[in-house]
């Protein structure tokens, strides 16, 4: 951010550089990210980045011409872009992918949209227009994926969308759980219009200009070309388009090959074939192929959760089977999942997150769930929104993080679960994609709900009794009020990351979300970053424990204020994740990447993966030091932020 450059560059003369990152007295034999492999001893590497990184830049630019997918989406700044890549990226292997420009023709027309890309990103990085952009939150959670001219106020597009929804205003930026607001809003405003939580823009089809301008389409179709689901537009009206997609897939299949990816200008068309079900994503968001494919996998998983894989049998009986009616009433489930692809790191980390709670509180919840699980309950989950409070599996059963994601998405996006207790068949695709389990769902309050899963269709009254027992214990031990408090207090704040290692011991005792007198504020002023972000320009981090299959994400704080910025950061993490896990040349251990938006640092060990975002002018050595502190901090509070000793994969 150019506007920040003055304040942040003063950072580097603040005198904290002399602190040797390795002189940390508390340093354990734990992995430490060492700045040594840095070839640059320059104290202020950012003042003149091109001198140092010219060769890397040149390499990067070369690579970029080969592989677009790992690039930052801002094309305009390419010349000024500066990337330090410790673990050098190799050209993406394109094996098996069908990478060919679609030439002129009817369909190429419909793909030929993304021209205002530069102006869009300019508006975004200037950081000025963010608040003025008319934002149809309810109707189009992905609205910033839709091209708009430089001046957002005059965007004809926003006006167009405004006609379909009352909520043209951008939603308050400061809350972390913006995501849930979406879901709640659906419920609260549901009386306004049925389409609010159901199909979005059902009136569109592939002939509509607005439909073509959508930045990210998802389609599910059958192998005979019948539409099953489309994110935008009416499925039946899209029958022709769906048949075209089917034709592309079967054309390649007839040649004994498989189509994975088609690039058409800025658009990527990603295909996923699951037996008789085809899934397609058409996107100009520049997300890596692996990410988009993972998103299609999740979409398929969500469908399996609703129907089980035995839906394939319908196609064996009748290849022309029309599946849309089987998914009746589930549009809200799919749109909520697609929306969460841009705010929920669980969608690409394949890990779940826990609500921060005192260890004893979580233990109280765990012990009653454990009691219940002994009595014929396969999985018992206590959740608050999309975060786990506690979960227990019957012996030998394991619950995959993706199943937790899909299950909680299904429950939270279906308003019906809130009206009363319910007992519904659901399938956990990673547990057993062929069979239904039966889910007893009950909300204790507006955010907190219990899910009891069983294999027995007769177990309702038993599960109801279990729920009553759980409810008694939870209210006697104040778990529910602690949960509400945790929601208010929030999770880890980067401002609370202690700069001085000596004062870190104090942090262990205090509750996560509590303000720590004398810790945050002096740390920040000493840092010179005038109240923005954490030490050394740290803006945000995500820490994933590999052993626990859980992650923790810091709260958003300035300057990552708006939903758009948060989403953009997640996209950046997603690219980082994909590049670190690239099969051909990965996995990598560290990556330090600087562009005009952030410094991104990723560090992968056997125990954890850390993703951290810093001010774009952050100093590398300092950033590395701060990452070490973050890891230590996470370890210090791990029994509050993680569910320990109940790893679903520990069997």
């Amino acid at each position, binding site marked *: 951010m150019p506007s920040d450059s003055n304040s942040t560059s003063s950072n580097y003369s603040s005198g904290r550089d002399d602190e040797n990152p390795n002189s940390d007295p508390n340093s354990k034999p734990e992995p430490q990210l060492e700045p040594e492999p840095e070839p640059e001893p320059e104290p202020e590497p950012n003042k003149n980045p091109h001198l140092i990184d010219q060769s890397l830049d040149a390499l990067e630019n070369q690579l970029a011409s080969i592989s677009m997918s790992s690039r930052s989406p801002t094309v305009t700044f390419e010349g000024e872009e500066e990337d330090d890549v410790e673990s050098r990226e190799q050209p993406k292997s394109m094996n098996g992918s069908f990478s060919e420009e679609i030439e002129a023709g009817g369909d190429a027309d419909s793909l030929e949209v993304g021209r205002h890309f530069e102006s869009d990103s300019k508006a975004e990085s200037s950081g000025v227009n963010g608040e003025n952009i008319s934002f149809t939150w309810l109707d189009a959670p992905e609205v910033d994926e839709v091209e708009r001219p430089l001046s957002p106020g005059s965007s004809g597009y926003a006006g167009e969308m405004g006609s379909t929804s009352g909520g043209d205003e951008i939603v308050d930026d400061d809350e972390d759980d913006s995501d849930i607001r979406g879901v709640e809003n659906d419920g609260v405003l*549901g*009386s306004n*219009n*049925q389409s609010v*939580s159901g199909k979005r823009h059902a009136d569109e089809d592939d002939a509509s200009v607005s439909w073509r301008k959508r930045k990210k389409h998802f389609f599910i179709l059958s192998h005979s070309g019948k539409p099953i689901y489309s994110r935008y537009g009416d499925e039946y009206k899209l029958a022709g388009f769906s048949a075209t997609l089917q034709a592309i897939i079967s054309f390649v299949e007839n040649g004994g090959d498989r189509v994975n990816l088609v690039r058409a200008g800025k658009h990527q068309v990603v295909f996923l074939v699951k037996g008789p079900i085809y899934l397609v994503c058409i996107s100009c968001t520049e997300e890596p192929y692996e990410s988009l494919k993972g998103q299609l996998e999740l979409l398929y998983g969500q469908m399996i959760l*609703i*129907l*089980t894989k*035995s*839906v394939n*049998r*319908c196609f064996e009986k009748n290849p022309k089977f029309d599946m849309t*009616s*089987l*998914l*009746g*009433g589930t549009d*809200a489930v799919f749109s909520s999942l697609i929306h969460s692809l841009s705010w929920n790191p669980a969608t690409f980390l394949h890990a779940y997150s826990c609500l921060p709670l005192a260890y004893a509180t979580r233990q109280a919840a765990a012990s009653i769930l454990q009691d219940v699980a002994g009595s014929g309950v396969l999985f018992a989950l206590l959740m608050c929104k999309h975060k786990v409070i506690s979960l227990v599996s019957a012996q030998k059963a394991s619950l995959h993080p993706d199943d937790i994601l899909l299950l909680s998405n*299904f429950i939270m996006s*279906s*308003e*019906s*679960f809130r*009206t*009363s*207790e*319910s*007992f*519904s*068949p*659901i399938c956990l695709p990673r547990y057993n994609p*062929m*069979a*239904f389990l039966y*889910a007893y769902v009950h909300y204790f309050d507006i955010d907190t709900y219990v899910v009891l899963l069983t294999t027995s*269709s*007769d177990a*309702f*009254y*038993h599960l*109801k009794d279990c729920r009553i027992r759980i409810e008694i214990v939870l209210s006697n031990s104040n778990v529910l009020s602690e949960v509400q408090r945790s929601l208010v207090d929030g999770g880890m704040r980067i401002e609370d990351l202690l700069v001085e290692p000596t004062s870190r011991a104090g942090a262990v005792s205090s509750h996560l979300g509590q303000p720590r007198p004398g810790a945050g504020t002096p740390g920040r002023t000493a840092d010179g970053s005038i109240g923005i972000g954490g030490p050394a320009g740290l803006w945000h981090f995500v820490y994933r424990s590999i052993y626990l299959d859980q992650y923790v994400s810091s709260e958003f704080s300035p300057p990552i204020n708006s939903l758009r910025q948060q989403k953009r950061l997640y996209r950046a993490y997603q690219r980082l994740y994909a590049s670190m896990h690239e099969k051909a040349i990965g996995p990598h251990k560290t990556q330090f990447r600087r562009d005009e938006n952030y410094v991104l640092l990723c560090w992968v060990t056997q125990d954890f993966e850390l993703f951290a975002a810093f001010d774009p002018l952050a100093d590398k050595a300092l950033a590395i030091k701060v990452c070490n502190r973050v890891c230590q901090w996470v370890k210090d509070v791990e029994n509050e932020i993680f569910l320990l000793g109940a790893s679903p994969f520990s069997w």
Partner: protein
Amino acid sequence: MASSANKNINAKLVLLGDVGAGKSSLVLRFVKGQFVEFQESTIGAAFFSQTVAVNDATVKFEIWDTAGQERYHSLAPMYYRGAAAAIIVYDITNQASFDRAKKWVQELQAQGNPNMVMALAGNKADMLDGRAVAPEDAQTYAQENGLFFLETSAKTAANVNEIFYEIAKRLPRLQQTPNPSGMVLVDRPTERANSASCCS
């Protein structure tokens, strides 16, 4: 199946009918006195209980509000198994929902509890302009099949309590022994009981 201790009767009641006929709206009107114009689709089945007092007894209804979506049809036996009463709901503005209601009646007659009290509810009776099913047709059909028939409106509350009270009155007063777990298994096994997949 209903059970009585003195004059307290527990009765399992199931609502069946096409998507959007108004099953959830009827239940919410009866149990909570609420009505929302755009009720979300039910997932699986929602459970409610409500007690009504009739002349000679107190009837505690355990109500299963089932989802009308096609994918849940094969799972319906799970919910109507052992039910003492059923309300089959259709939308008076939608002929297809009336046809669907007849199919549910057939299925219950074939597979349900033979002593089940069945009611036919023509819902959305406030929407006279859009009427597609004549009340006479429904009345005739109900008589032929041993159901009692009322046109209801969850929106205006017309006949909503009445239909539940009428069921409460008609429930047989001589009861089998109560099942301690509350779950009553079928007298004769239904052949669809183990078809747990969506479309078998």
